[in-house]
Structure formats: structure tokens, C-alpha cells
């Protein structure tokens, strides 16, 4: 399959220009990889338009992480037409980030963009940091379209997803992720106690292979960990 990519250096130059309010032509920097049929980007373009429209209409106080979560599954579904070997190429994600999703990403990471720390959110070098790739990981971590509601189920949960799901082994086992999200949804822990549960869970993976767990077993595991820890929130913990 033929697909478009951007190099890191082209991405940096173009992203700098876009952040400065310019509208550089991207096509001149795009190179094409692969052979045979060209990747069909129409569904991706449509979902990008929907996302950009949504954030234009969102309130200033909107929960941006939650909106990121809610759109992660539609994004993943739109990407189902793209072969995995293409998705493994960061250059393809860079192209998507700049060609279709710039407005969404710059809204989602408005603070870092304002300070000039925008590149890491679009260069897709680190999949857990760049916005599009981490959305894809988030949708996968809950098990995709059958569990779409969970990807955006938690309020203001940037750190939950980033530190306790996507960057650790928990995120590779959807039943465990779902159980963790469900527990946090029904009985929200503040930062400190949540970190204790996540740490205990991460230690569990030293001896245990999470992929073997069914939904019921994963729920028992998570609730067992929560019950076994002293989760009182010390003063000043959060």
C-alpha cells in the first residue's frame, strides 16, 4: 500500500510555521512509501473534520482529556482501513497530525503550544506523547469499538491514562484496563492513592502475565489490590 509520510525535520519546520499562524503547503514535503494501491484517507478526513468542528464549538472550560478520549475510538475505527505496518510508521502519523488534525491537537495541548513545546505532540516519535498516537493507544487499551464509552468515561484524567495505562503494561491488556477504568469511575481515587494502586498493579506484572486475564478476573484483581492497600489520602497528597 502506498502512503504519505513526513520526516521529523520536515514536521518540525512545518509545525513551527503553523504554530506561528502560517499555512505552509505540506505536499512539497510529503514523500510516499510502499507500493500498489494508495491508502484511502477519506474516513480519516471525515473524523478529523468532526473533531475539529467539535472543539471549535466547545466551551473554554471543556474537559479536554475527556473529549480526547471520546474521539479516540472513532479515530481508531477510521484507521481500520490502514494496515498495521503503515500505522507502525511514525512518518504516517506525522502526516496525519499536520494535514488533518492540527487544529484539534493545538486545542488539546494549547498550553504547551503557547510555550513552544508543540513538537512532541505532533512528531509521533514517542507514541504515548503525541496526541494522535496516544488516542489510538487509548482506544486499543480499552478494547476498541465495543468499549468506546470507557475511553472517555473519566473526568480530567490525563495522568490516569498517560501514567497508569498507556506507559505501562496495563494498557496492553484491555480487560485489565477496563476494570481499572470502571473502578476509578465508580469510586474515584485522588492522585496519591491512585498512584499507589497503579504502582501495586505494575509490580504485579513482574510475576504475572496480564494477557491471560478475563474481564471478571481482571475486576477481581483490581478490586483486590484496592482493598489490600491503605488508600486514605494524606493531607496535601493531591
Amino acid at each position, binding site marked *: 500500500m502506498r502512503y504519505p509520510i513526513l520526516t521529523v525535520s520536515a514536521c518540525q519546520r512545518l509545525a513551527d510555521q503553523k504554530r506561528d499562524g502560517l499555512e505552509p503547503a505540506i505536499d512539497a514535503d510529503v514523500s510516499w512509501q510502499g507500493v500498489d494501491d494508495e491508502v484511502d484517507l477519506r474516513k480519516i478526513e471525515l473524523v478529523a473534520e468532526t473533531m475539529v468542528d467539535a472543539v471549535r464549538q466547545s466551551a473554554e472550560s471543556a474537559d479536554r482529556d475527556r473529549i480526547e478520549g471520546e474521539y479516540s475510538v472513532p479515530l481508531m475505527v477510521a484507521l481500520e482501513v490502514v494496515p498495521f505496518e503503515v500505522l507502525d510508521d511514525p512518518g504516517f502519523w506525522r502526516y496525519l497530525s499536520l494535514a488533518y488534525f492540527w487544529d484539534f491537537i493545538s486545542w488539546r495541548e494549547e498550553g504547551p503550544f503557547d510555550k513552544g513545546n508543540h513538537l512532541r505532540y505532533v512528531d509521533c516519535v514517542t507514541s504515548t506523547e503525541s496526541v494522535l498516537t496516544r488516542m489510538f493507544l487509548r482506544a486499543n487499551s480499552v478494547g476498541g469499538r465495543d468499549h468506546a464509552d470507557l475511553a472517555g468515561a473519566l473526568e480530567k484524567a490525563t495522568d490516569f491514562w498517560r501514567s497508569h495505562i498507556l506507559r505501562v503494561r496495563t494498557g496492553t491488556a484491555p480487560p485489565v484496563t477496563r476494570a481499572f477504568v470502571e473502578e476509578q469511575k465508580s469510586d474515584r481515587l485522588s492522585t496519591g492513592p491512585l498512584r499507589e494502586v497503579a504502582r501495586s498493579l505494575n509490580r504485579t506484572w513482574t510475576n504475572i502475565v496480564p494477557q491471560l486475564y478475563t474481564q471478571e*478476573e481482571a475486576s477481581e484483581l483490581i478490586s483486590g489490590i484496592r482493598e489490600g492497600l491503605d488508600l486514605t489520602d494524606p493531607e496535601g497528597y493531591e
Partner: protein
Amino acid sequence: MSVEARTVRPFVGIESFATVLDDVVVHFGNETCNANSSISLDLEPHEYQRRSVVVQWAPDEESFHSFKDALLEAADSMRVDRETLLLYVTASTPYLKRTEIVEHLSLAKLEQLDHKQLLTDGRRADSFRAGHHGCSLNAYVLLNENLDPAPLRPWRKGTWLAHARFGLATQIAKSMFRPTPLDDAKRNELGLYGKTVRYFHMGDHDPLVSYDDQPEKPVLYVDENLLAELSANASHPSSISTQLQLALDFMAAVIHDASRREELGTVSIEDLADSLLGRVLRVAAGPRDSDRERLLALVRSDPGKAVARAEHTVDIQKRMLQTLHGDGS
């Protein structure tokens, strides 16, 4: 004072499993990866996607029978039903964090196991299509159901009794050092101070085992404003000097963390090949095994001097002097 409570494997009664997977190899096309090591694949992504992947459980047919016997004897010595134990292989790719089960077989059905098992017939697992980032395979013998809990005995479903890892790394998957912006929210979350400029967080990452196989990577946090300035003035001598210093900080933190780990006393350069410390040693000492051996010995005996050796390699002095002389402004 920070306290580390690291999980160890506290089990007894599973000694018979300790080496049972040591002779397993994985063939990736014509290249072979031994247990608990990694190979570096110099392949174009499209070539990677076409390679066959075969797990070979023992060197030859005769030893394959011995392998199966050893598994069954180990199961029996643990006094568990063979149905309870699985031979289990997963394939994981680091960039899109996909982990798939590519083989699983109850030890009760071990007679069905082939000496060489093709893992790429039928649907090709995503990890075997990830030509930009490669993958790792993990072979386990593990518990497939909960046993009655007992002290010092593995009982929880999913607990592995034997494990072997195989790393199939592509060239692109080699980067390790990338600062993360440190803002006030992150300072609060990490319990840092208002003017903290840099902070190294190792988390649960173990610098002595495979880097790619661990989802949690160490992070060097750097003040977001400083990072933006460095990025905006990337070629200025003071920026280069600061970037080198940050790289050196990262290497120093890895060296000091590794030096405190008991296992460091027993690992070799080969064991560290795909680990974070192995990469730091390569950067700090160069490609020659003898140089890296000497540096590893320094990490064990005098980590401060090992950091000094890394500083020698990075050669920050010239850039520091340029900065002080005001060159390049």
C-alpha cells in the same frame, strides 16, 4: 528519603522450571535469536513483514524429547495438574503497544507440540508486521488458573514459572534519550519544588533488562521554558552545551541507579545488550567489548568515576569553554 519496594520472585518449589526454556531459540528468517537476548535486524520494513518466524523448542529432535520430559517432570515436582500449566508465547511491539498471544498449549497436550513451530502461518500477528519498531517474543510456562493460596508457592493465575525473552529490534527503535517538559502541574504531581529545572524519574524501569520490552521508560524532566529555549536556539554553543549536560545527567542517573542494583554483580556485557545500561555503556565507552567491560566494572566499583568516563566521551569541555568565551553569539 525515597524507599523502594521492588517486587522479587519470592517462590520456592519451582526450581525445576528455572532453566527449562534456556535452549529455546527464535528464527526470524535466516537469523536466530537465543533465549534472553536480542538481535538487531538491518531490514527494510517490507522485508521484515515477509520474514517467517519460527520458535524452535530444542536444538534437535532428541533434545526436544528431553525438553518435553523436563517440562512434565517440573510440573509433576510442583504437584500440580498438567492441565493447570500452559506453554504460552506472546509477541509485543513497542510503538503501538500491541501484545498478541501467538501460541498456547496446555502441558497436558504437550504431545501435540512441534519441535519447530511456525508462528507466521495463517494471519500474521501485528508484531510481525511492525517493521519500523520490531518486536519481542516472550515464552512462558505459567499457571492457567488460580491454585489454593499457600505461602511462597505461586498460586495466582498468570504467574509464570519459566520465562525466556527474544528481542527482534529494528534500527529505528534505538532512541532512548528525550527530555520531557516539566511544568508546574507536573512539579506538583511529582512533589518537586517551584524552581526545579530537571528531574530524572526511573519509575519501574529496570536498566539491566531489555529496554524495549518494558512499557515504562525512564523520564528526564526538564523545565518547559528551558526546553523551549533550547529548541529555539538549537545550534547556539550554550544550547549545545546544555543539551550535552542534560544527556550526561541522563547517563549519570542511569549509571547510579544501575550501580545500586544487586543483580549488577552477576550480569555480563552480553546480558545487558538490549538494556538501558547497555546502551549507555555503548554511548559512553564505544563499540569495543573490552572498553565496555572496563566501564561496566567501574559502574560496579566506582559509579562516580564511570560518570566521569562518560563525560570524557561526551567531551563537553570544548562547548563549555565556547560558551564562556561567548563564541557563536
